[in-house]
């Protein structure tokens, strides 16, 4: 019996060591080679594929091969997961395996995605692997390794916005955007859709920006948005300095799918290119028989740090009372950024013939409305100015003195009537042909004046004699002298009652 046991012991020992030997040899002939890791992005998922070839040259089939990997961020949130298996690799066989690790951006919470995009951090990669050399050994391993994650959009900065007029309805808002792709593995290629909201949350402007950054490269770009403006807002922007406050909404799209969104307050101290617009008193001067030259000093300050204003505004000059057009002009403007401008609106206005009589003899105030229109780089500039001008009458305070009658012939006396007036105009020299007709109170002509030409410089007084021949019948009676001043601009009439 003992001998039988001895034989069994010997057999068991031989078998045990044979099994151990075969196991060790099998393990020694098990080879795993890992191929090139590829990173593929499809929609909002990132696939990390790790190909591997397992060559089982041993005597046992390697069964239940499982590999599970998880990637967690610094806060312990699960970012990516992948699993392979169970796979059986028969003895003397090889097998190609691909371990796929999937990062689904959509499944991440906002905070997790924010950390991943913008913060460098240490990720924890956990791998759980198991395999069996049946029926003797089952091996399972858990490996935990830190993985230094470089944020693909590290130091993402939305810089200071600048606002610039763009066209008739829009402002161009330029916002510098910069970041650094700190990742050594991931290339950043995305679209940024931007919206500009006013303080009431209304969408006022949109823009897009394509961002591309190779691994370990910096990105600097400018996000341009077109900000829709109402006419009133545009006018305000031209003339007033004020603080512009908006909310910038950025959506980072990866292959058309929103990956992340963020909002930033945008504040910009707008400095008007036509601030403190001042319009001086209009200067008038004779031009021709129909027009007066019109010159108005205009000044403003170009507060803008961006706009070099160089344009020409066309003016249409209206009678402020009647609303009828009276003339036209030009205002050339050249105001580089942060400079003051002083210039003149120059043009010509019609001499108002219909009011010539009134204008010739009475001081008054001329009121004009000047509408200026032009554009600067496609942006319309519209101004409406009120221009006032004190008009001094060229024949002010016309007075005829006591007539002196001298016999002239059998039917007529010669009249000598002292006449004085002041040319109150500050620019107009009076040059007129003065004629007179004398009528009795019934309207019958009783005499004529001797035409004379008078010249009275501006701001001077005139004293002279109006001479005429009057019928003897009119002597001692009241009569009316109808004086006609015929100027280059037209005729003006003045009636004076006299006693001869």
């Amino acid at each position: 019996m003992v001998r039988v046991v001895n034989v069994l012991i010997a057999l068991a020992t031989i078998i045990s060591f044979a099994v151990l030997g075969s196991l060790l040899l099998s393990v020694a002939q098990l080879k795993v080679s890992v191929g090139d890791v590829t990173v593929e992005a499809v929609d909002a998922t990132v696939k990390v594929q790790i190909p591997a070839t397992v060559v089982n040259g041993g005597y046992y089939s390697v069964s239940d091969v499982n590999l599970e990997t998880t990637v967690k961020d610094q806060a312990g949130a699960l970012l990516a997961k992948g699993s392979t298996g169970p796979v059986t690799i028969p003895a003397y066989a090889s097998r190609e395996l691909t371990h796929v690790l999937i990062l689904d951006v959509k499944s991440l919470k906002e905070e997790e995605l924010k950390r991943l995009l913008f913060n460098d951090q240490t990720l924890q990669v956990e791998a759980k692997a198991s395999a069996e050399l049946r029926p003797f050994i089952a091996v399972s391993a858990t490996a935990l390794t830190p993985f230094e994650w470089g944020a693909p959009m590290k130091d993402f900065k939305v810089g200071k916005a600048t606002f610039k007029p763009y066209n008739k309805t829009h402002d161009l808002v330029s916002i510098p955007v910069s970041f650094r792709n700190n990742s050594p593995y991931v290339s950043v290629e995305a679209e940024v859709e931007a919206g500009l909201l006013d303080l009431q949350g209304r969408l006022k402007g949109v823009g897009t920006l394509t961002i591309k950054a190779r691994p370990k490269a910096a990105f600097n770009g400018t996000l341009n948005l077109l900000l829709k403006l109402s006419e009133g807002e545009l006018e305000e922007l031209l003339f007033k300095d004020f603080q512009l406050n908006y909310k910038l909404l950025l959506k980072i799209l990866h292959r058309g799918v929103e990956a992340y969104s963020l909002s930033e307050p945008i504040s910009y101290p707008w400095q008007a290119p036509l601030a403190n617009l001042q319009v001086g008193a209009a200067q008038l001067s004779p031009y021709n028989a129909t027009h007066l030259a019109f010159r108005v000093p205009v000044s403003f300050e170009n507060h803008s740090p961006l706009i070099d204003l160089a344009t020409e505004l066309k003016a249409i000059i209206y009678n402020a009372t009647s609303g009828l057009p009276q003339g036209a002009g030009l205002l050339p403007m050249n105001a580089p950024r942060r400079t003051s401008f002083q210039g003149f609106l120059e043009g010509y206005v019609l001499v108002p013939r219909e009011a010539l009589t009134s204008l010739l003899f009475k001081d008054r105030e001329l009121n004009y409305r000047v509408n200026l229109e032009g554009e600067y780089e496609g942006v319309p500039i519209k101004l409406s100015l009120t221009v006032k001008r004190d008009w001094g009458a060229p024949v002010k305070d016309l007075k005829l003195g006591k007539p002196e009658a001298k016999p002239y012939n059998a039917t007529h006396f010669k009249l000598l009537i002292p006449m004085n007036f002041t040319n109150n105009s500050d620019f107009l020299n009076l040059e007129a042909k003065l004629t007179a007709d004398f009528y009795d109170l019934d309207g019958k002509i009783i005499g004529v004046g001797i035409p004379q030409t008078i010249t009275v410089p501006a701001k001077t007084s005139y004293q002279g004699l109006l001479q005429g021949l009057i019928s003897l019948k009119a002597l001692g009676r009241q009569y009316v002298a109808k004086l006609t001043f015929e100027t280059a601009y037209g005729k003006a009439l003045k009636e004076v009652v006299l006693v001869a």
Partner: protein
Amino acid sequence: MLKTLRVATAIVIAAIHFVAFYYVPVNLASLVARVAPPQVAEAVSWLTPQIIPRTLPLIGLIVTVLTPAVILLKNTKAYGPLTTLTGLAFTAYVYTALQGGFITITVPKIPPIGLEATITMAATALMYLFLLPPTLTIVKGILITVEAVSRVKALKGSLKPSTTPANTKANSYSNRLIRNES
């Protein structure tokens, strides 16, 4: 001559067992360090305490003592019990060496990558296979002991006191045999 051969065998076996079951487990790290590259030596230095339990060398020492004793005390009363004890010692050695069938190795943090790993090997089937020879040795020891005891009992039963010359002669032979056995 036979005794001399047995003593020599016992010494050789003792030496082999001492080296295999005591010296190597105790000095594994330093032995590897002599022949292997530094990285391997370092790995073995942290691996050794995990794959060689503290009690293993002690059990190995017991095995080293018991195996030559079995050889030296063959055909004596102690042979069976010593064989059983040796089987038990080997059983304990295998069980301890394979840590009950579940060997867990914790890889300390490896700079610079900072990898930490835990490897668990379930080798119960292998352990049972390796437990088979010592278990059979225990059985063998028990069988030897039982056989020896039953033989002695049988001899004692057949040699009751007798006045006949033949019985007297048989008794004296039996007593001599028992002495030799012991």
